[in-house]
């Protein structure tokens, strides 16, 4: 049984049709990359899978770890092991990062029938993660993403991911706005989540992230459909030739 099974997914925003029949199957242990030009529906796909209001699913189904994902509340999706990494993580001043980390970890542990992690163990784990992401401890006591640079926000997303250890990480343009050093740190973080029991879906414009996090499969999303799938060489071909030829060949 695959971890994520998307079948013929159609979705609208208002009158506008964005997703026109997406099929995608992700097994545990696999890394998939979804690439595509602007407006192809990449972010919409992430938002629909995350459970964002405002999108109407008109057709199709999504099964996640045996559950009907589209019937679930956003928080229940998270508690079931889905993590959405945001392209533009929102700023929440007043809520400290450390508080967010603790609340989310405990909410997810509770949903899985586990007790709260004791503060000592929690802090130890968090400090190690902060260090591994080459961030400063002071970050923990700042408001969530408040006044963060683009790179800091993305590192924060990966830090949360590593703490929450999702079964499936769906990372929406995590590489955008990163300089080369930050890209390396973020990529190392993603690679640490890789494992036989987890799946990762990277949504990206560029090949460069994929040099650090090698995908098992690459899919090209265009006008709300996956028009071509292949292995990592597809991403390289895309990088070399641009979208135009591939889109022509596919149409």
């Amino acid at each position, binding site marked *: 049984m695959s971890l994520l099974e998307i079948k013929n997914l159609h979705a609208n925003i208002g009158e506008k049709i964005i997703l026109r029949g997406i099929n995608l199957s992700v097994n545990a242990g696999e890394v998939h990359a979804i690439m595509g030009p602007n407006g192809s529906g990449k972010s919409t796909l992430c938002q629909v899978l995350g*459970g964002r209001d405002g999108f109407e699913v008109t057709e199709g189904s999504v099964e996640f770890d045996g559950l009907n994902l589209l019937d679930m509340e*956003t*928080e229940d999706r998270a*508690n079931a092991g889905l993590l959405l990494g945001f392209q533009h993580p929102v700023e929440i001043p007043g809520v400290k990062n450390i508080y967010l980390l603790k609340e989310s970890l405990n909410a997810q542990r509770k949903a899985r029938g586990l007790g709260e992690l004791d503060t000592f163990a929690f802090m130890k784990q968090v400090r190690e993660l902060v260090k591994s992401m080459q961030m400063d401890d002071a970050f923990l006591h700042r408001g969530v993403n408040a006044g963060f640079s683009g790179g800091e926000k993305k590192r924060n997303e990966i830090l949360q991911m590593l703490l*929450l250890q999702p079964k499936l990480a769906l990372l929406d343009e995590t590489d955008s706005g990163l300089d080369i050093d930050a890209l390396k740190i973020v990529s190392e973080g993603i690679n640490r989540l890789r494992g036989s029991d987890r799946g990762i879906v990277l949504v990206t414009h560029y090949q460069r992230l994929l040099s650090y996090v090698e995908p098992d499969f690459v899919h090209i999303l265009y006008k709300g459909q996956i028009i071509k799938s292949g292995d990592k060489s597809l991403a390289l071909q895309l990088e070399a030739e641009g979208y135009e030829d591939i889109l022509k060949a596919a149409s």
Partner: protein
Amino acid sequence: MSEQHEIEALVSRDYKYGFVTDIEQEIIPPGLNEDVVRLISAKKNEPEFLLEWRLKAYRHWLTMTPPAWAHVHYPPIDYQALSYYAAPKSAAEQAEIDANRPKSLDEVDPKLLEMYAKLGIPLHERAALAGVAVDAVFDSVSVTTTFREKLAEVGVIFCSFSEAVHSHPDLIKKYLGTVVPAGDNYYAALNSAVFSDGSFVFIPKGVRCPMELSTYFRINAMNTGQFERTLIVAEEGAHVSYLEGCTAPQRDENQLHAAVVELVALDDATIKYSTVQNWYPGDEHGKGGIYNFVTKRGDARGNRSKITWTQVEAGSAITWKYPSCILRGDDSVGEFYSVAVSNNYQQVDSGTKMIHLGKRTRSTIVSKSISAGRSQNAYRGLVHIAKTADDARNYTQCDALLIGDRNGAHTFPYIESKNASAQIEHEATTTKVSDDQIFYLKSRGITEENATNMIVNGFCKEVFNELPMEFAVEAQALLAVSLEGSVG
């Protein structure tokens, strides 16, 4: 039925387990004239000076008109239709009331108990709040006596205002109306004429009050009526922390509440006055609810004295309230920390006045307003630096948080400086709880309700930090309940 509606239904229905009973009280016929004022005073067996004071206030009130400048709207109040006196119940009447009360918590509506649990009300208080016959809960008389003895040992006087009129008339005469004069404003004048009862606190020179006052007494203090009058005096070097109110929803058949609180701090004295207000706010259509028109003022009369107001305002249909400080003594300090939350059709016009008269006086204002539903929430604050107030300083921070897009937050700061050496800072922000923020937190496994609470509590943290510990915990819970269902 959504959770919001459940809460609404809970707070808006007849409070059959609570304080409202259908037992007839001895009530003076509605209407207000000098005879009624005399009757109130006579019934309470008051000394002549107090009657004269009431009459003077009444005569002044007749010449006044209700303030129209606040950002609130309500139909005119017919003061001749109100009743101004309800006699204390006779033993027989009290027995009948008690007979109708639930005998134990088992007989109380589980939903009400659930709400108390949500608010974190201590177990022994829940029964009393739910109207369970008091002797079945705890012997309140003996509890009161125990604490009174403890207070008396150090010379602290803490009793009802009526009691103090008889036991300490000299103190009442000396301090009553010296902070809020009888004719100060329309509602204060009305209160001065007809006030029912309230609390009196006196901390003698050099004494640090050994406990937070009113924590243990608040249940008993609940039925003090619509025209409450409180006077707190801290002599030289004295310290006191006073807690008013309760997070449990309070219902009252009187729509108009016009209380007066006066604080007097002499040299080196400190008074900390904390309020959690949760009067019935009306239903989700804006029907009913309490009008809370309160005058609270502290006089930092002595040098190096300090007065701190901390308030969490969650209830009432209309709130008109400006706890203020007169910084008369040199080096005196005034502080105002406020969280005002409004939902549905609630209207809040609240803030403070810091009147700097003494040299090197300092004031701090931190006001946080949270508006949800179709509510209107205004901060109104005056910082006045008198000619005499050399080197005075004020710091004001006004933050507004909006939940939804059908409500309004307003800021009306007034700054008057007559002394060039003054330093005045004013900062204001308005932020909105966005769908993006809620979605972000939900995507990490946090429920919508908790997500809102995290944002709101983060926003209010600075004020909650000023509350006594047990109040702070209840206040957080109160905000959560008040805002339930307001997002999404």
